[in-house]
């Protein structure tokens, strides 16, 4: 099992407003797409994708709830708890790969983007955010391949949502793999389009999570456990899902609309 490690934060990088990267060391490894459970002492423990792998790991966090807002005040030397790594990984298959990242979804996708690139694939990334000043990891995605920017308000790049730009890019080029992470409606649109075009795809999902190790049943998507069977699911799996893009579970386990 993955024992909790208490780790000092080594470095904090403010990426954009309300979103920062926290670097720490841990004794465990991590693969592209995997996540860790991060304990913000006295507040909460939350699942976070590894945005940096290797010895000096990183999580990239958007201030969303009370705990993540509290984390924004953490400085180098402050202690967090980490356990993991958990979940499956993105399958690094494909020679011509399109990655579609919406908002802070790039935190889950940046390590896979770099891994696809290192594995020799030709990588294109649709990097989308609400506004120009909310785009994250632009340099890192550029270093791994071609980047297509999109903003909801048109302040930079394509004026519109990520799936619309992804469709345009897919019309112009042939891809043999698509990887996506972002708001679920975005991922649903991307996966549906890939299914229509017959392009293999995979997406990293998020659900309310407690244990992280496949025992508590909090994070179910249909009868899959997002923490252990996922968080990365294939287009084929998601096409069969009754929950994907439609339902989630609340903290009590009730199935409610997304």
């Amino acid at each position, binding site marked *: *099992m*993955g*024992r*909790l490690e*208490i780790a000092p934060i080594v470095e904090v990088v403010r990426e954009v407003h309300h979103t920062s990267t926290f670097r720490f060391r841990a004794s465990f490894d991590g693969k592209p797409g995997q996540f860790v*459970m991060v*304990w913000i*002492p*006295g507040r*909460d*423990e*939350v699942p976070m994708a590894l945005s940096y792998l290797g010895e000096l790991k990183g999580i990239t966090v958007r201030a969303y709830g009370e705990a993540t807002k509290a984390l924004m005040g953490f400085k180098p030397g402050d*202690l967090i*708890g980490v*356990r993991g790594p958990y979940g499956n990984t993105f399958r690094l298959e494909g020679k011509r790969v399109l990655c579609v990242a919406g908002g802070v979804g790039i935190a889950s996708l940046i390590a896979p983007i770099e891994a696809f690139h290192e594995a020799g694939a030709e990588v294109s990334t649709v990097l989308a955010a609400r506004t120009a000043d909310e785009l994250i990891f632009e340099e890192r995605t550029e270093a791994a391949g071609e980047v297509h920017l999109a903003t909801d308000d048109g302040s930079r790049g394509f004026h519109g949502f990520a799936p619309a730009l992804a469709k345009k890019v897919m019309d112009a080029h042939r891809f043999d793999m698509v990887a996506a992470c972002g708001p679920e409606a975005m991922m649903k649109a991307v996966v549906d389009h890939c299914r229509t075009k017959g392009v293999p795809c995979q997406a990293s999902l998020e659900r309310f999570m*407690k*244990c*992280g*190790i*496949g*025992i*508590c*049943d*909090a994070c*179910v998507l*249909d*009868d899959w*456990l997002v923490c252990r069977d996922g968080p990365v699911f294939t287009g084929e799996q998601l096409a069969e899902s009754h929950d994907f893009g439609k339902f989630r*579970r*609340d*903290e*009590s*386990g*009730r*199935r409610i609309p997304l």
Partner: protein
Amino acid sequence: MADVSTEVAGIKLRNPTMLASGFLDETGGTLLRVFKAGAGAVVTKSIGPEPRAGYDNPTIVELEGGMLNSMGLPNPGIEAFGSEAKIALDGGAVVVGSVFGKDPDEYAAVAKTLAGYGVHGIELNLSCPHAKGLGTEIAQIPEAVREFTAAVKAKVGVPVMPKLSPNVSNIADFAQAAEDGGADAVVAINTLRAMAIAPELRMPILANKYGGLSGPAIRPVGVRCVYEIHEAVDVPIVGVGGVETGRDALEYIMAGASAVQIGTALATRGLSVFADVTAEIAAFLEAQKVKHLADLVGAAHG
């Protein structure tokens, strides 16, 4: 092929492995998935009268010999759970519904509704070691165990099996009280009240501070409890606590259990643990030339 089927208070099981309450059992889809993966029966999350979010995270701490948890009885509530139970039951699963509440009437009402959904038996969570004010302290008073069991028995027709706490000085007294209350079987043991502290932070890790210890570390305690209960009462026993292998299950069976429950081992052996433990038991029976698992129940009592 050795016969690994068993029976608990009239509930027929194709093998003696049951999913322990609290694990992969809040939703119908996963209950059915666990049954299809090989469990002889599945026990639901403890269901109460109303939806309950449970405690904040951290709710689990992974340890070398097991795990601490303090989930805080999250559940969708008896009404919403109906559609989940239906998925598992329609799929053919043998389902035991676990219930909790604040008093005998609540336990009885939830159990009655669950029985109405079609579950094959009722487990009474009388022993959650970390949820205050929910009737779970009754695990400390034998007379309360008798009273709660009797209240549920009066309302349901399916077998009723109270789950007993090991956090008492003489668990056999509680098994006796359950039997006096009309229990059709008893389940032992629930988790041991426990705590883990992060030294660097000088604070308990669990948000609720206290939790319940499960996993291999508590198996010898569970085996001892089942052994003591078997000496004290006549009703069947379901053994639970740290079962990871066929040999572990056989310890419980020889102490007196007719079936075992498995939970924490899901983290180490995955969903195949039920089929694997069953196969390991079967291999043992073949090697020992024992035809029926039932012949080994209580075998350690000489």
